[in-house]
């Protein structure tokens, strides 16, 4: 095997791309975006997250049972606690932060019993998720100017299904809903969304397979405006956040969505609860691609955590919420329309810590 090729390739690439990146000055894209009377719209009669997540025992459950029965806090206690948290996909960094704080308190004899330790952990985890605004924003009042909710995410996380459920719930709240079938890439994605439109009584605007998703979204918003529809739910094709051309396409969709009469009031990142540490990279990149402003602010306004009814725990949301400041707004806990519910941090942590 000849090692010279990668050297050469590397040198050429680093040099070439480096020059270009250095030269590049990203053009400023000023956009006025203000929120008038933001209104919360929680789904009515949501089933408790706790009871639904308990299909599988809480992630920390097994470890916690063992911890609780021991008389003191030993080296093994910490190890088991750490592994239990890691097993829930909480991630090395967040786990370190959580446990460092607790270790100090144990050292100061503020915490002595395993049970105290567990409840302190639970409080700390809940606190990390506290204080975020998790309402879905709808600006009411101007019938010509529909609200636009854009759904983004990698492949296979459940964007289309989520839109179907959101549509049905918003219809139940008495809103007029129109879907924009912006996933023009995946074979039969439009058919899938059409099925959901029929089920929920929403209208749908479709483009051609392989067509320009921005155009579909734009048309949908104009149609909604003309027909005084309150809410446009825009689907986009799943894309890996590492594909620059596809992320550019998404950038365009986001820009174009703000161009017509609509107001983009939510950009919702859909994340699969089974996702591991890569979820953070997803959130960062999608936030960057949908950001119309200068600066580091994320363009994503909220996260939808899907498939939480499996055995996955979705611990990655701790990192996403605390490192990127993106609130989880909805969680998917089953197949039916009512199984998409508002995220409740207290219940979420409680379900994680549930024993037995």
């Amino acid at each position, binding site marked *: 095997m000849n090692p010279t090729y990668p050297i050469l390739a590397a040198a050429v690439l680093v040099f070439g*791309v480096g020059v270009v990146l250095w030269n590049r000055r990203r053009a400023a894209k000023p956009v006025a975006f203000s929120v008038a009377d933001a209104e919360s719209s929680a789904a009515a009669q949501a089933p408790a997250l706790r009871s639904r997540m308990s299909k599988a025992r809480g992630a920390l459950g097994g470890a916690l049972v063992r911890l609780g029965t021991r008389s003191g806090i030993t080296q093994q206690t910490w190890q088991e606690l750490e592994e239990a948290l890691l097993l829930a996909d909480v991630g090395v960094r967040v786990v370190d932060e959580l446990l460092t704080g607790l270790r100090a308190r144990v050292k100061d004899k503020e915490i002595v019993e395993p049970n105290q330790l567990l409840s302190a952990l639970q409080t700390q985890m809940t606190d990390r998720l506290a204080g975020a605004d998790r309402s879905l924003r709808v600006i009411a009042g101007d019938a010509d100017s529909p609200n636009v909710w854009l759904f983004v995410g990698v492949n296979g996380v459940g964007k289309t299904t989520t839109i179907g459920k959101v549509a049905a719930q918003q219809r139940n709240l008495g809103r007029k809903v129109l879907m924009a079938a912006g996933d023009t890439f995946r074979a039969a994605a439009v058919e899938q969304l059409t099925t959901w439109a029929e089920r929920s009584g929403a209208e749908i605007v479709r483009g051609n397979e392989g067509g320009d998703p921005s155009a579909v979204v734009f048309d949908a918003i104009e149609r909604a405006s003309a027909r005084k529809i309150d809410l446009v739910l825009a689907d986009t094709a799943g894309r890996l956040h590492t594909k620059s051309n596809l992320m550019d396409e998404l950038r365009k969709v986001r820009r174009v969505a703000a161009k017509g009469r609509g107001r983009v009031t939510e950009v919702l990142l859909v994340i699969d609860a089974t996702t591991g540490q890569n979820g953070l990279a997803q959130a960062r990149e999608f936030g960057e691609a949908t950001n119309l402003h200068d600066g580091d602010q994320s363009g994503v306004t909220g996260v939808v955590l899907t498939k939480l009814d499996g055995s996955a725990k979705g611990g990655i949301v701790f990192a996403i919420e605390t490192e990127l400041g993106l609130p989880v707004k909805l969680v998917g806990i089953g197949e039916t329309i009512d199984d998409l519910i508002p995220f409740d941090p207290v219940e979420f942590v409680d379900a994680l810590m549930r024993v037995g």
Partner: protein
Amino acid sequence: MFDSLSARLEGIVKRLRGRGRLTEADVDEMLTEIRTAMLEADVNVGVVRTVTARIREQAIGARLSEALDPGQQVIKIVSQQLTALLGGETLKISYASHPPTVVLLAGLQGSGKTTNAAKLARWFKSQGRQPLLVGADLQRPAAVEQLRTLGRQIDVPVFSEPGDPVKTAKRGLAEARRLGRDVLLVDTAGRLAIDNEMMEQVRQISKAVQPNYTFLVIDAMTGQDAVSVAEAFHATLAIDGVILTKLDGDARGGAALSVKEVIGRPIAFASTGEKLTEFEQFHPDRMAGRILGMGDVLSLIEQAEQVFDKDQAQIAAERLLEGEFTLDDFLEQMQALKKMGPLSNVLGMMPGMPKELKGAEIGDDVLRPVEAIINSMTALERRKPELLNGSRRTRIANGSGTSVGEVNRLVKQFQEMQKMMKRVGAGGPGKKGKKGSAPRRGFEGRGFEGRGLPGMPGGFPGFN
């Protein structure tokens, strides 16, 4: 945030220079970093525990060779271990004596079963087989429609009928016999591992078609849950192999290791892109490097071999290291490089590539201005960039539609690269280029000046 393992170990390794043997304490310190790297790659906690224990045994007391630094030797041990864990037996498809050979695909929702059913069909086709696809996912709206569209793209027939997925699968089998197709691929509905009803359904399908191979489709981005998923499916279906999908992202794919370790079945195929051709048999050695954050060096070499003229590249590389590399050589190699596929893919495969370069902003046209500038130079100027005075630079800028500033920067960086490469080349085997020599603004060249690329003189073990 995912520092490469070699970067993580750097600090520890510095202290160890010149020692002949690794002590227990040294190894434990390094294992902490290795453990973190594996956890960040989503390798299951339990698997990490057993793997690090094995590595510890191997590493303690291992005699250090003179040529490699201790950190590299530990990485070598780790990498060998992981490769062994991921590989072992590779899956060889043997076809049924009474066709069709039946292949069943199962997995969680959204893992990519339908797309990979088509990819696998295409692969069988490329092996000279005549597959038939069966759409037994009657759950997800339009899943069968999706399969039919994909089937048309690869010219493989698709069978499905509404109603009962078990019956559909059975009828599909009869259809394959009737049409004389020798491979039958059954796509099933995605399910949650803990959904008993759905697991029962796929078990029934399996019972009805008696598959020769059952593949579990797993998303490379899956976290710790991969283990419970694999266990649940293996208990129900007896998995023969795994198809790892979405490897074209930046997930390090620790799930592959977890699954292999837990169910003891090989990763058979890897899906590396959205195109139906982006699907290949799995290479354990590459995956080991990826989990450790060392890039996909071997794939890169292979791809490069396909597009670079071997002798020419050899000469160019030698000239590069001797500092005689001209802008002409550069242009030529850059054009060859472009044939290797999207730049972002190539960059992603490089170990230690700075984050800024791995970012999503690199389109394929980024190199165009560079090309334009070089193309606007005379032959002499390309060989001797030091000739470029103010008026020549203005002419080049005008000719290439760029600015004098851009031309200046290109020339300056080229000279810096030449200097840097000369130094690396002069270092000779066993030594490394000096760290932090050539300042490159806009990004940190971690992994290039100091660490050394794998395969570079004094570079990584295990690859040359």
